[in-house]
């Protein structure tokens, strides 16, 4: 049984939640406490899978509590359920919370968010990797992206377009911005996958506050995992995103699909970044073995960790509340046949684009991914499109 802990300084809110979620009592072990210190005491006695906390509380507020929880119990999924209306408040949570829900929150919305995180937990089998991923507050960025972003923001009239482009070229920034803009806090009527739209929604003030917060800009230290190059990963990801979008365009998909293909392509290997920053030497080991034995990286990862960067990446993005289609496309980008989709899908676009970009990209140090899932392509009747897509991958040299 999964254990849940709800924290709110108002006992009436807790009672309401308790009554409303009573139907889940046979599946969930639900606990309710009235403050941060009580929550920490509870967690010291008993592991908790998901903590749902209010933000404003006397003594220890929600962001302090969650920071402490992420330090002491990194595997616990951290969700905020707050009635706060200020944007600044949510910025304080960008680090410590995985997801934000707004009061008043429909019971279904809360229930679904919790169910979703539970199914995510099952996705990634390795507890150690789970801890590692759940502890991540932000992903490292390249110093050049940081310089360019702060430079643009300091101008008298910063251009939203240039800022979006800087964001979109950076895996870590994009993932963070998507986490924010898709959180219930902003209450947008639909999920957003286009970085430019996301930046426009958040607005310059919020983006600036984000850019200035040290939580967001951790720098990548190349010495820690020497065989890994963030620069190359960024370029590979950007190229994959562009090609996935181009493919969607060639298949006459709508704008939303094109945006999702791009975002999933951009983020498909985010798990590698998590592993390289979290496991340094072990990950160097993975890369080394992959090169020496000419094995796909994901295969070595699976062998050594019992999970691949695709699992880790999907777990992270799921925790951060990114749209499900993105999480799925990332999870299965090496095994598209696990998807139930019987026609062109985000999973397929990312899978094919990834392989095609690897074909093109000589400099990339990762051993190539497993080849195209031809059986799946045949099954969906899209195998015949491969040459068209490959030609598209050759069109634009500038991006590689």
């Amino acid at each position: 049984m999964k254990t849940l802990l709800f924290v709110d300084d108002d006992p009436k809110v807790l009672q309401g939640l308790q009554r409303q979620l009573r139907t889940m009592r046979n599946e969930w072990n639900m606990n309710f406490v009235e403050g941060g210190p009580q929550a920490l005491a509870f967690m010291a006695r008993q592991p908790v899978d998901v903590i749902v906390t209010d933000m404003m509380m006397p003594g220890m507020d929600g962001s302090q509590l969650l920071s402490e929880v992420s330090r002491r119990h990194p595997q616990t999924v951290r969700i905020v359920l707050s009635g706060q209306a200020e944007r600044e408040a949510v910025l304080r949570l960008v680090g410590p919370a995985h997801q934000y829900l707004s009061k008043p929150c429909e019971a279904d919305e809360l229930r679904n968010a919790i169910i979703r995180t539970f199914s995510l937990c099952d996705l990634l089998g390795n507890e150690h990797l789970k801890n590692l991923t759940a502890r991540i507050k932000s992903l490292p960025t390249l110093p050049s992206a940081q310089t360019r972003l702060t430079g643009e923001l300091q101008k008298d009239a910063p251009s939203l377009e240039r800022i979006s482009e800087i964001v979109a070229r950076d895996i870590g920034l994009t993932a963070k911005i998507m986490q924010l803009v898709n959180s219930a806090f902003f209450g947008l009527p639909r999920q957003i996958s286009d970085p430019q739209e996301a930046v426009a929604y958040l607005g310059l003030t919020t983006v600036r506050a984000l850019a200035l917060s040290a939580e967001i800009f951790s720098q990548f230290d190349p010495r820690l995992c020497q065989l890994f190059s963030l620069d190359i990963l960024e370029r590979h990801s950007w190229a994959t995103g562009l090609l996935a979008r181009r493919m969607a365009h060639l298949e006459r998909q709508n704008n939303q699909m094109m945006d999702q293909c791009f975002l999933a392509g951009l983020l498909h290997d985010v798990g590698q970044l998590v592993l390289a920053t979290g496991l340094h030497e072990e990950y160097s080991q993975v890369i080394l073995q992959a090169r020496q034995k000419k094995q796909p990286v994901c295969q070595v990862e699976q062998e050594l960790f019992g999970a691949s960067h695709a699992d880790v990446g999907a777990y992270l993005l799921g925790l951060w509340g990114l749209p499900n289609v993105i999480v799925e496309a990332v999870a299965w980008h090496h095994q598209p046949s696990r998807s139930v989709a019987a026609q062109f899908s985000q999973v397929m676009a990312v899978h094919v684009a990834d392989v095609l970009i690897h074909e093109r990209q000589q400099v990339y140090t990762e051993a190539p991914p497993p080849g195209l899932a031809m059986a799946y392509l045949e099954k969906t009747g899209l195998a015949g499109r491969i040459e068209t897509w490959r030609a598209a991958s050759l069109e634009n040299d500038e991006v590689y």
Partner: protein
Amino acid sequence: MEKIQVIDDEASRLTLPKVPPRQEAGQQAATAKVQKELIGTAENRLWLMHENNLLQVLMDNLPDFIYFKDVHSRFTRINKAHARHLGLQQPEAAIGKSDADFFPMRLARQKLVDEQCLLATGKPILGLIEKSDTAGETKWLSSTKVPIYAADGKISGLVGISRDITAAKEAEMERQAMEAQLRQAQKLESIGQLAAGIAHEINTPTQYVGDNTRFVKDSFPAIMQVLKSHEDLLAAVKNQAVTPELIARSEVLIKESDLEYLYVQIPTALGETLEGVERVSKIVRAMKEFSHPGGKGKSLADLNKAIESTATVARNEWKYVADLKLELEPELPLVPCFLGEFNQCVLNLIVNAAHAIGDVVKKNPGTKGLITVQTRRDGDHVEVRVTDTGTGIPESVRPKIFEPFFTTKDVGQGTGQGLTVVYANVVKKHGGTVTFETELGRGTTFILRLPLHPPPPAKGGEG
């Protein structure tokens, strides 16, 4: 309206040498006649030339406007400066004309009324602030006009001198506009800050009102099933047709429907829902009272009620660091005041108190401070005291706290306008006083005193 001071003492009267009674002929003719009679002897002539010279020099070189008028308020002589203001090349061109020839109708009539009053009563006009529009320009003038007495003791006209105070007046108006703007800006800012707090205050009960209502709704089908099965059972009992199956069915339904839990929870859920709805409507009511439009004039206000609403509206600002105690004198008389402004003052003081307590609480996590708001009548005044158990105000800071933009807080926490606005509202708008008592490490009390019978607003002041 402008302030008019009236002084009338014999000594300050201006008397001209003997003048014969005014004749019916035109004013020019009359003037010529006066002059002829005056220029009698050579001695006189010399003396007069000398005097006239002096007068001419004085008139032509003073930047102030100088003008003489007859009993019909027609110009008999003006100086160069005034001619320029009236748009004339030569001063002589004004002679025989009146204000109506130069100024808009309303203005000219106002001047005429003022001057006719002066000519009738002999009461001089001193330092009257006049707006003076001519085709080309708008000027603000400070005018002094005094009657001229003929030798027979009758008033024969007036002499006026007007000083151009446009620059000073504009600076003053600008300052007033700025002050109003400051007040407005602070109001907006605190409304913005409050709005976020109020949203939070409303979102919380809304959460559990929703949860509880849905809970009752979701439980009802199960309850209904139990009731239905008991109806069946009852019917069976009446017909003496009870079967073991019927009993078993009822028992199963009772077990499945979690009745024990529902018996306890449904009444509490409904009670808490009602309480939540009441909490929301209390906030909404308080908001309405707080944002009192504060019409043009003062109205008699129940300060206790105003303080209660303001404290409710501001609850999110203090509740995490302090408790708030209201000690309001039940018999407090109504106080003539601008309610909107008064609420603003109380809000600013409560927010300051919460901040000062917040600083203490930060150093001693887990503790809470206390804010006390008291009202009482003290003779002709009503006193409002806002006391906190915060940091107290350091001595070096005390003299500066009412200065505009003086703050010791971080950017985003304070802009240093709170107390400036309190001071302006209480002292300038209500004729009250603001004082404070403070002790480092113990706390601070701000004391507002509002007069119950403020003197009627001085006639004049701003337009």
